[in-house]
């Protein structure tokens, strides 16, 4: 019984990471996952909590990204609420970009 519950949570987590991989940066064709903005995903029953950072404290797209994340997660079957915590520690650096993210940015002429 306990094992089944754990399995359920694991599946939910995977789905959430997958959904986050579909949330795009509002300006560049790169997902927020490939940007390395997601620090943690926690689930509790039907509630999801995300720790997320931004590349800069003056990021102009903060509201848009938070709105997109919440909308995406709340549309998932079995999710009733999604909370987004903005965290600044550890600070984002280019090292957090995935390989795929790096390739996208380079193809747009952005040095990484």
């Amino acid at each position: 019984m306990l094992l089944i519950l754990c399995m359920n949570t694991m599946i939910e987590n995977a789905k959430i990471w997958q959904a986050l991989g579909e949330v795009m940066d509002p300006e560049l064709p790169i997902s927020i996952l490939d940007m390395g903005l997601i620090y943690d995903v926690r689930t509790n029953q039907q509630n999801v909590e995300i720790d997320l950072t931004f590349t800069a404290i003056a990021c102009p797209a903060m509201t848009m990204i938070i709105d997109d994340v919440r909308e995406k997660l709340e549309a998932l079957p079995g999710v009733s609420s999604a909370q987004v915590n903005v965290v600044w520690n550890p600070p984002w650096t280019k090292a957090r970009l995935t390989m795929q993210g790096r390739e996208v940015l380079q193809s747009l002429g952005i040095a990484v």
Partner: protein
Amino acid sequence: MLPPEKDAELRQKIANGFIVETEEDMTPGYKAALEVILTVQGDTELVSAPAYYFASKDAPTINSRLAVYAIIQDELGHANIAYRLLEDLGVSKQWLMYGRAPHEFKHPYGFDQALENWAEMVVANGFFDRAGITLLSDVHKNCSYGPWQRALTKVDREEVLHLRHGESWMKRLAKAGGAAKEALQRAVDWMFPVTLEWFGLPDHLKKHNDQLEYRLKGLTNDQLRQVWMSATVPLCESIGIRVPAHFDSDKKEYHIDYEFPVEYDAKEKRWLFDQPITWQQVFQRWKQRGPMNQTYINMIQGEKNGAFGGLNW
């Protein structure tokens, strides 16, 4: 540069898909038309900066004000791209920035108006930046001048962000209702018609069109106006904001609900819909420039007694 008598040949080559890369490929006519359209783009981007700056002071949160600053920075970058391309054609960037009097800048009349509150700020993003995207994505798709066409990849991406900023805030203000929605409606009331004019003379009045014949752009003024309305009219309708235009399902196009163009009271920022005028009168109004023309250009040029104190920094 090619001699003027090669003009017809160049137009033909362009019609067959030729991409102009350097001055050697151009005739004087092509170069002159290119300089005009690039100057309009650069000036429009440039003057949006002071206009947005004033409006940003009314931002509801620090983050939303920062978002406008980021937009301003993008716009200045876009102006730099256009001026940089003009520099390659022998036009001095120094002169473009500092050598011209305020009335000599070629931005549209809409950017000679004061943006006085947050609602006007976000409608500027939703309407003016939408106009910018409409014009520039056409250039990006169709333009015969290679260096400009390529430079617009970055510009287009950034303009999409500005647009989204505008549209999401327009939705938010409409949803809030009350005073917020009323301010939004007031902004739309003057900013919708001013953007309709932005696309210029209707096709049936236009006798010749170098910009189209040299394929500096691909769509006509009326086509571009339709593209713009096809985005802005449904957006406003979906959030309960009135606009003086609707979709005519018989003709399958957007229809302007007044005798376009009409008289404008710039001081009151109010359109006098029952007073139709000619396009000659519109051009006259544009030529006289609007109320903020001097202030905005002074800010950019750092005029000594201007808004930014010029060299007194």
